[in-house]
């Protein structure tokens, strides 16, 4: 697999694991755990992507 794709896959795997544990710690039923896991996964991945994009944009600005 291409290196950038591999890195994205690693990132998503880690986010998935953290989201699953976060969901397991916030609910009890299967439906609740699934819902909270998806919420935590989306929130965490979204925040990290937002921060990474912000850093990338800042680096572009400082280089210009």
């Amino acid at each position, binding site marked *: 697999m291409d290196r950038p794709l591999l890195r994205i896959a*690693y990132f998503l*795997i*880690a986010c998935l*694991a953290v989201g*699953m*544990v976060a969901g397991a*710690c916030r609910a*009890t039923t299967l439906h609740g755990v699934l819902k909270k*896991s998806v919420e935590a996964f989306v929130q965490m991945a979204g925040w990290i992507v937002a921060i990474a994009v912000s850093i990338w944009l800042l680096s572009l600005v400082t280089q210009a």
Partner: protein
Amino acid sequence: MDQIERPSPFLPVFLAWLVPGAGHLKIGKLWPGVFTFAAILPLYVGGMALAGFENVSWERYPVYFWAIHVFGGALTGAAAWLTRGATILERMPDKDVGVLFTAVACLLNVIAISDVWSRCRRGDPEDRAKARADASQPPAAPPAPSPSPPPETREIVGG
């Protein structure tokens, strides 16, 4: 005053440390236990695979082992014992990712252990959220009085 009897957290916490998810199963929380196990075990083993099965060892990586990997419980014990004679033949291309994955898996088990403790001490998160919501609502207003019949009206005729 809290009158609900809670289970003692010590055995569930010990089981949660020993095997990820076992603490939740001990206190009867099936799905949290299943999710914890399904999240931590593949991350741990996958991290070891990426690192060449030599990153969990108190001899090669004592700081990682005693600071982080100890929270993996039996996983760490088995990994360290099974790979005690591993030799580093070549550096794996994604070794750093593997080391990170294994460390994250152990730290996720810390979160799971603390959740088991919290559930034993304070109950399930849904119940706590419901209690908080009930406490934040204003007390119910007293029942409204039944509508009284309209006052009798008398027609004043004449003067």
